[in-house]
Each structure stands twice: as C-alpha cells, then as structure tokens.
C-alpha cells in the first residue's frame, strides 16, 4: 500500500486541504482536531510521546481522552502511530515552523514566491500490505484449577468427590492491543499468575490444603473485544463443572498504568448489591479489613451498576457471569467503567507499577486465604516460606498471549490441573469480532521540493550554462591576452598570437 501526500504545512492551520496526511505529535492533537482530521484529512501520522512519565497530569489526561476517542470512533482515514524518533520529531518541527511562517501576514509577493520555492515538502510513503482480514482470527482462553489432592481430602475430610467442593473462579483478561499493536500493562494477568503460584504452594501441602477448588481463567483481549473470551467459555464449558460456584472474582485494571495523583483505592463492581451472609459480602468485608492492614491510605468501595441488557457492549467481565446467574464481581482500581485507563497502552514508572501490583497480590492473596481457611483476617498467612515478594510478580509483568509463546500455558501446566486451552473463533457469516493482518508498516518520509522549485532550478542552471557558454566564447581572447603578456615577460620569439586557439579555462 502506498499512501502518498505532501505535508507542506500543518493542516491544523489550514484544514481545507483535503487529502493531505497530517503528521503531528500525539500530544498536540485535541479531540476537536481529531474530529476535523476524521472528516477532512487524508491520514494521520502521530508520534507517540518519548516518555509518558515526565508528562504532567493534565497532559496525561488529555492523551488518555484522545486515546479513548480514537478507540471508540471509527476513523475513515489511515492513522499511523510512530514511536518516538528524533528524525521524525525534526520533520514535524520543520512542518510546524513552515506553517508558522506561512501564516505570517506581513509579507510581500516576492517573499511569498521565495517561500513557495524554498519550502520543504515531505512525501510520505507507507509500505506493507493493507490490513487484510485474518481468516484464522481466534482468541485463546486458558483455564486451570487447583484441586486439593485426593490424599489430603481423605485425611482431612471424608467428603467424596473433589468436584463437589465449592468453586472460586478467578478470571482476568490479557490485553493484547490498544490503539497500537502493543501490549498494554497486564498487571491483572501478573496478579492471577502470582496467585496461581502462591496458592499452588498451599495446595501442595496436606495440612494447608483447603476445602475449596480454585479455578483460574485467562482470556485474551477483554474489554475491547466485549469479553468474548468469557462469553465463549461460558457457552461451551463442559469439563470444569460450574456447579457449586461460591463466587467469580474478576480482575480488571487492578494496577493503573499511568500514575495519577489519586489515593489508592479498590472498587468492587457488582451487578446487584450483595446480600448479607452471602460469600461476596463476606469476601468484601474481609477485603476491607485486609486492605486496611496492608496499606494505610487504600480504601475499598463497593460500586453497584446494573447490567444494561439493551446495550450490546458490557462494561465489566463479571456481568457475563452475572447474566448466567453466577455470583460475580470485579475488583478494579478504576471507578468509572468508561475510564480510558482500562485500555491505555501508555505505561509509566515501572517501579511504581511493580510495587502497586505487589501490594495488590498480597491483599488479594491474604483475603482469599482468610476466606478459604476461614481464619482471622488480622493474621498473616503468607509468611516464612510462602512470603510474597517481587519475585512472584516480576516474571509475569511482560507476559505474552498463548498465541505468541507458551509462558502462560507452561505456568498453568506447572501449577494447575485440568489445564485446557479453548479458542474462540468468530462465526464466518456473522462474526462478533475480526482481526486484521498487517505487520508494522514502514513509514518513509522523503524531503521533496515543489514542482515550482524545479522550474526555478532550471532557470538558475540555464543562467549558469549561459555564463559558461560566454566564458568559453570569450576564452580565445583571454588566451591571447595572456599570451601577449607572456611574450612581454619572456621576450621570446614572435609567436603566432593571431592563432584563434581555443582552450577552455574557466567555466
């Protein structure tokens, strides 16, 4: 595919040039500009900021809003995102300056002509094929469960089959894309994987083997794909019997990838307010106590939002489970389900992210442990050889999809039983979602000159050639002049100075 166009001046000042792509730094685009671009520009090349963490909160907010807009609106023109690149920045600055000069009112016609001749244009080509529909689009769903060993069961309790034990399902989504094909921060998956690792230790010891089954479910894409993974899983689930479900705990944006100066808070999103004495309300109380103990300024708040069945897009993953009448809730650090933090690809300050994720893992693990062992929430379960530290979290922060490598699968198979991967493939006739092929295209920006510049250049070259022509015509006389001087100088014999010889000397 080739997208060609000229960026003679930024389009922002002159939005009537239809068809010209716009190149800009992402930070400079406002939502209003985006609307203009959608309607009038030929394309958008946006350079992502170099370092998000140094931006001020307002600019972060603006970037997030813009990102959200880009994700929700359909944009008919191609939009290219470029990572920070000093050359591209230089080009964008150049365009911006040119336009600033162009917009200067007090200039005469000659200056304007000079400007149009000397103006730098940029010719943008993009190679790489157009995004074709991937016929093999699929999203993986991986499940696994921690079953107390039969041996332990017989010893502790004489209750028969393990399938009759109450089930706690922990689900989350692996975000695999945002506005670009880049993995956003996947702290939720890291938390789930850490929980898998931590609780498998407890399950392996007979004395701490709980009377609960813990099941884990990770599906790809999440909110941006309307939680298709859990939908498919709920529809086709056949091997993990969803009987006797105590509750479904869903994690969503448990760690914010962009620091905003807000107090740490957990929000427990439910579709209907939990009644007293239900497992969810019990868990909620435990969570409040544990959170208060583990971090001073963190709060836990319950948010109730009814499921809007009329709307095709759901807000939280637990709604998929609630619709099937499973007690379910979502733990998240964002309050508003439409928050752009849930889909952002921007990450800042890794140290803060790690610390926050670690705290979250501790809180959830302690709460879960208190819940399944029915112990006092004021005591620490994870101490000594099962202490939770950064090593539990760090390896999972950059985890990739099952389609890409086997990290999740290997982790599940190492710690869990009944691991199964199912794939959700869209229906051929009425697809719920669709992926497009397309490797990262290469953007080439060439400096070009307008056609009038070439005409101008031809004029100068002709002038030069004329002068050379006359210089050559003049050369015999020049030679004779030198020869005459030389004769005087050397007092030599009489030379044939009238000889019309030609030797070119000067061009």
């Amino acid at each position, binding site marked *: 595919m080739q997208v060609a166009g000229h960026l003679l001046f930024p389009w922002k000042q002159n939005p009537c040039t239809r068809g010209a792509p716009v190149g800009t730094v992402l930070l400079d685009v406002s939502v209003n500009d985006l609307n203009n671009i959608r309607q009038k520009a030929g394309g958008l090349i946006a350079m992502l900021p170099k370092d998000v963490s140094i931006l001020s909160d307002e600019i972060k907010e603006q970037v997030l809003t813009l990102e959200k807009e880009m994700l929700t609106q359909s944009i008919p023109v191609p939009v290219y995102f470029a990572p920070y690149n000093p050359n591209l920045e230089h080009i964008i600055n150049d365009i911006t300056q040119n336009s600033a000069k162009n917009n200067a009112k007090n200039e005469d016609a000659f200056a304007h002509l000079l400007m149009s001749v000397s103006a730098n244009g940029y010719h943008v080509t993009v190679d790489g094929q157009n995004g074709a529909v991937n016929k093999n689009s699929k999203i993986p769903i991986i499940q696994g469960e921690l079953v107390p060993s039969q041996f332990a069961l017989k010893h502790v309790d004489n209750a028969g089959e393990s399938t009759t034990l109450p089930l706690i399902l922990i689900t989350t989504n692996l975000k695999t894309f945002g506005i670009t094909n880049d993995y956003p921060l996947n702290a939720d998956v890291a938390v789930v994987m850490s929980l898998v690792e931590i609780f498998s230790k407890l399950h392996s010891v007979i004395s701490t083997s709980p009377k609960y089954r813990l099941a884990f479910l990770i599906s790809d894409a999440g909110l941006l794909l309307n939680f298709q993974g859990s939908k498919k899983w709920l529809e086709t689930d056949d091997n993990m019997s969803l009987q006797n479900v105590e509750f479904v705990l869903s994690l969503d944006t448990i760690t914010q990838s962009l620091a905003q100066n807000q107090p740490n808070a957990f929000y427990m999103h439910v579709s209907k307010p939990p009644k007293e004495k239900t497992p969810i309300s019990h868990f909620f109380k435990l969570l409040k106590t544990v959170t208060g103990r583990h971090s001073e300024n963190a709060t836990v708040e319950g948010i109730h939002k009814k499921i809007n069945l009329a709307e095709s897009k759901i807000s939280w993953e637990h709604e998929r489970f609630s619709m099937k009448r499973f007690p379910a809730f979502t733990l998240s650090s964002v309050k508003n389900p439409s928050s752009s933090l849930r889909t952002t690809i921007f990450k800042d300050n890794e140290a803060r992210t790690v610390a926050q994720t670690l705290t979250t893992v501790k809180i959830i693990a302690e709460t879960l442990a208190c819940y399944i062992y029915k112990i006092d929430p004021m005591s620490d379960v994870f101490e000594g050889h099962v202490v939770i530290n950064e090593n539990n979290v760090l390896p999972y922060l950059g985890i990739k999809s099952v389609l890409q490598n086997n990290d999740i699968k290997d982790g599940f198979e190492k710690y869990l039983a009944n691991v199964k991967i199912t794939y959700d493939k869209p229906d051929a006739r009425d697809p719920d979602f669709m992926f497009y092929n397309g490797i990262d295209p290469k953007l080439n920006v060439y400096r070009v000159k307008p056609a009038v510049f*070439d005409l101008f250049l031809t004029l100068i070259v002709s002038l030069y050639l004329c002068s*050379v022509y006359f210089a*050559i015509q003049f050369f015999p006389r020049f030679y004779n002049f030198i020869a005459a001087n030389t004769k005087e100088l050397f007092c030599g*014999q009489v030379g044939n100075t009238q000889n019309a010889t030609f*030797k070119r*000397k000067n061009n």
Partner: protein
Amino acid sequence: MTLYHFGNCVALLMPYYFTYKYSGLSEYGAFWKCIQAGCIYIFTQLCKMLVLATFFYSDTSSGNGEFNFFAELLRCSVDVADLLGFALILSRIPGKGHSKLITAGLGWATAEVVLSRGIMLWVGARGTEFSWIYIQKCLESNVMLVQHLTTATLIWLFTRHDLSKALKPLVSVLLAVTIFKGVWLEGLLHILSIGPWAAIAVKALVASLIGFCSLHIYSGLAQQIGI
C-alpha cells in the same frame, strides 16, 4: 525527486559538451580519441584499485565523517598513478597542439563523471528524496573538468624538454599541489568546517588559480614552439 530533477542535474554537466563543441574538438573528429582517453582512465583506475586493495590497510570504521590525515595522504600517493595515466594518454593518443591536451583532459574527466557520478545521479536524483547533494556533485564535476584540463597541461609541460629550466620546479610544484589536493584542500575544508556550497566555491577558486598559472606557462611555451 523526479526525472525532471535528474534532467536539471544532467544539464549542469553541459559544460563538458560545450568544451567538446566549442574548443574545436568536434571539428577534428576527436570523439574516438576522447573515448580512448576514457578507456585509459578506466585502466588507470583499475590499476589504482589493485594497488590500494593489495598494499593499503583499509579502515572500514573510519566512515564516520572523520578526516584521517594519514589515510588520505596514503590514498593520494596512489593518485600519482593518475599522472602516469595522463602521460600515457598524451604519449599514445596523437593530437595536435591544444586539441591534444583538451582531448586528454576532457576524455579523462568525462570518463570520471560517467563512472563515479552516473549511477549516483540515476538512482539518487530520480529517487523520492530531495537532496542538494546531486546539484553539488554536478557543480563539483565542472570544477573537476577544469582541474583535469589543467593536469593534462601540466603533465604535457612536465614531459617537454624545451621548457625553460626556471619553470621546471614551478611545474613540479603545481603537479604536486594538484595531486595532493585531496589532502591539503580537504583537510583545510574539514578543519575550517566549511559548508558544502562554500567548499565548492573554494575548490573552484583553487582550480582556477592552478589553471591560470599553468595557462600562463603553457602560453609561453606554446609561442616558443609555435603552436
């Protein structure tokens, strides 16, 4: 840019044609002689390449715009072969008077411009990216034409036995200056960090100065021997 831009660049090489046309070479039918001179240029360059590749250490890491004095000096010392090439042209290709020198210089310069600039212009100047470098290279080629004509003259003067003894050292010095121009001139331009346009102007000035001196000596000798 476009084919049109390529045309502009090629138009800048027109002085080569002017030289051929208006110096009377076309009347002598010296076209074939120019081709021969060009062939000798190619032969000389091949020999130079062989020597360079065989005996000289090539530092591939020095391509970062650094000016390496010793590498340049060594490279220029191989350029002495150019002088031998010129001498070969002058001795092998028959010609009369002025036209002999112009044949040698023009043939040499044309072969150089075609071989060393041709591909760059065809690929680069027609390419999408605009760069001043093609115009600059073409202008520089014009300077090189003057330079090569001068060198041919100097070599011819050097091989003459009837050149007065007083002028012999001057001719030798001018030859040395020409050959080692790559060292002293480029070094100077590098040290003074002169921009590409000014660099061409300086080169043109130097070429004109050397050319003027050689012309002066040449006209004296030409009158002596009556050509």
